[in-house]
């Protein structure tokens, strides 16, 4: 009985350590996987986490999409796709549910001109100032192919 509890515990620990969890972007230290630039601008950034827990970091959403389309990692193996909220420095949010604004006024590190937002309201407020077009994830994926 006791041994099986120990086994259960060990198995649990092993499985926990394999969990594919995102980690925060270390600005000033992490380099973008695609363009090799050191991450600097906390308004931008993106991260992919594979099912095995391998993490790829990017400085701009177009860098993430270049990598995503390159099939270096099969798209089916990706557990998390995350982007940074433009209005909340360094905060990662799920990419597929985010709201995107594309505008010439948005000067992102790799010139994608894309800002991501967790909430539609924030996008609407920013859109009044920055102009541009509202986009969703699906459109972005096809645009940066």
């Amino acid at each position: 009985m006791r041994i099986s509890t120990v086994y259960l515990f060990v198995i649990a620990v092993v499985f926990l350590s394999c969990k594919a969890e995102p980690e925060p972007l270390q600005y000033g230290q992490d380099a973008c996987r695609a363009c090799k630039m050191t991450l600097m601008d906390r308004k931008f950034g993106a991260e992919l986490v594979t099912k095995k827990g391998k993490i790829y970091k990017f400085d701009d959403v177009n860098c993430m999409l270049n990598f995503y389309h390159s099939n270096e990692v099969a798209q089916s193996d990706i557990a998390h796709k995350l982007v940074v909220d433009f209005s909340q420095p360094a905060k990662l949010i799920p990419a597929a549910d985010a709201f995107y604004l594309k505008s010439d006024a948005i000067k992102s590190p790799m010139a994608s001109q894309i800002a991501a937002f967790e909430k539609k309201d924030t996008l609407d407020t920013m859109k009044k100032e920055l102009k541009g077009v509202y986009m969703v994830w699906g459109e972005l994926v096809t645009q940066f192919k």
Partner: protein
Amino acid sequence: MMKYLFLCVCLWPWLLAAKTIVVGSSGDYPTLTAALDAAVDYDTIVVHSGTYREGNIPITKAVTILGVGYPVFDGEKSHEIFTITANHVVVAGLWFKNTGTASMVDIAAVKVIDAKNVTVTGNRFTDTFFGMHFSNSSEATITDNDLHASATGEHEIGNGIHLWKCHNITITGNEIRGHRDGIYFEFVTESLIARNISENNIRYGLHFMFSHNDEYRENAFIGNGAGVAVMYTKHVKMYGNLFKKNWGGASYGLLLKDIQDSEVIGNHFIENTIAIHMEGVSRTRFEANDYLRNGYAVRLQASCDDNDFTRNNFSENAFDFATNGTMVLNTIDGNYWDRYQGYDLDRDGIGDVPYRPANLYSMIVERIPSAVLVWRSFLVLLMDRAEKIIPVVTPENLKDNTPSMKAYDRT
């Protein structure tokens, strides 16, 4: 009618003559803002020494602003100092201090928007968020300025000289320390960067993106967080620059990514983690460069083709060449390698057997970075020797067929 015309002709020189306005406690006006209100195009404003706290100063006329004894313009950590939107503005001999900082907007000591022929020369910048920030501008001259920032976090500081969508810009003789990127180019064409010193900046000494037909020569890039990055650019000329002491895991003397038809000639790469890292580089000449005491001299990714390395000196590098591919479509003939152990029986100065600069171990480290732990062990030495005799892992055609027996003399 004739009388008026005569009057006009007589008064012409007075109508044209620009006047000089003096700013200072004993001058015509106590503040630059007041002097600018009174000025017309092509006036000269002389600012005497003192500290001026005038918040943001918009410059909308073609004036020349000259400082005497470095008058201080203090942004009190909350303002952008000069915002220039007129052509033919000259700013010289001023001292800019303490601009505001922001994460959403680029606050600068001198911001230039949609202007031509602006000159910024001989100024000092201390703890400014962005030093100079030019957008949509052309024919600007930025010379002999001294920029120094002391921020520690990368988000507390902007770039020293930041250019976005500009063309025909001349940047010479500036010194930039402690900024995010020393000099930043995005969509800047037909420009020259010469004899600048960019040192100890948090990220790149020079950062170059989508900027075609530019030339940078005789600059020094020393001890920057990640070295120098030149990306997504065609026809860039890099002559006689110094890349020194750019150390760190993701640090490069020169990072080249997606570059075509460019020239890297007569540069010195000293004590960098990776002197040159190349990805997606095509039709580029690397000639007469010196690589001394670097971790890697050249790290060539398989995506590079049609590049030519010749008359370079490779000395005391841990690895001369590393590549992650098996096919190499570049030529590397006629270089000097201090590791070359061949002979020259006909005494023509050219080694009689080819030199293979990529050793087995550098290929292994490329795949398993942590393998560097056993570097210089006896086993690794044996493996390298065996590989030299019968190449299995290293690309067959990655070799210098005409290695020079002596280092090239650059004098």
